[in-house]
């Protein structure tokens, strides 16, 4: 009886140490109702890009049109803004949008989108 119990115990230890040979299941083949999604995911199909424009500190109060478009020319925003003010905008874009075309008065510039942010400054950084 003791030998049998010992056999059962050792067998249990042995099998508990055997590595599972299951291949990971590709959940992407499953139906949407079969899998767990991340609790923080909000299912948004668009991105929000925070655009920061640094104006000229103490500069003149010149107001002019500010416009943002995608590289494909789709208009995202337009308004009338002072060039001496700091401006923050939150633009809705496609997740694949990684460049924004800014037109501020006569100035045209292409801003790169990185980690949901894009920025521009009238003042060049000091060397």
């Amino acid at each position: 009886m003791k030998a049998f119990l010992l056999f059962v115990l050792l067998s249990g230890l042995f099998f508990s140490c055997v590595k599972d040979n299951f291949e990971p299941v590709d959940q992407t083949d499953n139906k949407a109702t079969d899998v767990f999604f991340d609790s923080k995911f909000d299912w948004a199909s668009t991105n929000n890009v925070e655009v920061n424009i640094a104006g000229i500190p103490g500069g003149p109060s010149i107001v002019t049109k500010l416009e943002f478009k995608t590289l494909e020319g789709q208009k995202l925003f337009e308004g009338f803004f002072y060039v001496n003010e700091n401006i923050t905008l939150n633009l809705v874009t496609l997740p694949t949008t990684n460049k924004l075309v800014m037109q501020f008065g006569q100035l045209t510039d292409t801003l790169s989108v990185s980690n949901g942010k894009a920025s521009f400054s009238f003042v060049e950084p000091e060397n």
Partner: protein
Amino acid sequence: MKNKYFRFLASAIILIMFSAESKSEVKESFENKSRNVYIAGCWQFISTNISSTSPIEGKYSVNTSALSSLNKPCTLVTPWYHTDEAGVVTFKTKLSNYSSKGSQIVEVTLVQPQNATGSNLLTYTYKSAAVADLSVNIPAGTYYLIFNWYGEGTNYSAYLDEVVFAGEYFSDITSGKGGSCSALPEKETVKDDDKDGVPNDVDAFPASPDVSFVNYYPAGNVFSSIGFEDLWPSKGDYDFNDIVVDFNLAFLTDKDNNISRIDAKVVLRAVGASFRNGFAFQLMGIKPESVIEVSGNHLVHDIMKLNANGTEAGEKWLTVGVFDNCFDILKHPGVGIGINTEPDKPFVTPDTLEVSVVFKQNGVFGGGLPVKYSDLIANSKFFNPFIFVNGVRGKEVHLADNAPTDHVDPAFLGKGDDTSNPALGRYYKTEKNLPWALSLPQSFDYPIERVIISDAYLNFVSWGLSKGAKNQDWFMDKAGNRNTNKIMPHK
């Protein structure tokens, strides 16, 4: 006597105000240590800089390099200014040191659009190291000045500070930097028919002072879609076609970027259910009293109680009902489960509802409460669309993690398959975190009746499992994305 005295005083104040206005001037004290700030403001520095070594006033002045050449000047070029009448430009200047062995001079040249070579206004020879208060006369018109310093015999430098220009700043900062800036267009050449301060050439509505710009959500000439499941708080069949609406919002803004009007185009494209559902949207951050009038919607069943201005009563944030019974908008063809969700059933052509929300009329804002468009969109969840199910106002279905309105019946939240938890900001998700509604940045080719979305859109699960990082274009008509046999043909 007192009356006469006050009348005189009032007249004097008005006179002072007007004379101050007509004699505009701009003072530059160079109190920003960064030369690049001035270069961005259209100043040009050649062998000159901003220095704190020996400022004339404040902490900083313009400082030249050593004045050791009579041929190669140190130069400061100002931006453009404009004065309607002849005036004076004053400034303070000094040398870092003075010796009679040397000779240092400053020349001031006036440049006007009609005289690009410029004309000399002043040649001043420094006679000591003391500060000299100098001035030059300026004719009416647009101008800039060139300060040139020359010297020989010593290595002393010169300083400049407290320059007061006649007129107003007139450089177009957006046209370039430093010396490459152009002047703003002359005022008399700028056409502004509605006199709202926005020139005709950039004013989308040049004849209307209340509106100048148009901002579209999601973008110009683009319709977004939302597909809803309507069995909340129970799970549905996940075909996301119980209600499918396309929408485009046009935010018309004025010269101050305040919203004057919202024109919402809403197209009810499909009803994959038998419930008499309604559709509405809330704009987070806008108070209902900001609105003057709502029009163009179809609310006839007294499900939403409205304020006099057409917004929903009893809501903290502006809530606009679009329709309160989907079958009023899209007529059932007489066969099939719903409308436009089964390919073999008759197609019903959708109508477009054009809902207008007016915030500003004849220069006056509703409730005196202007709303800046940029402030509205600062909240990434500002647009909060929802359906209310089968005539029950409190049974709302929103996008995942969008909060319900004040009219939601809290008894539904967290019940059935719903795991909403307001304390965590979690709304409208199942235990497995599936939503009850999906929003797409294009018109949704929704699944056929009772086809689960992942059978129609083959990369939907991959997109969801990657939290949106992979297959971001899962909804687009691209190779490998769709099983077209399970998607309702787009008509």
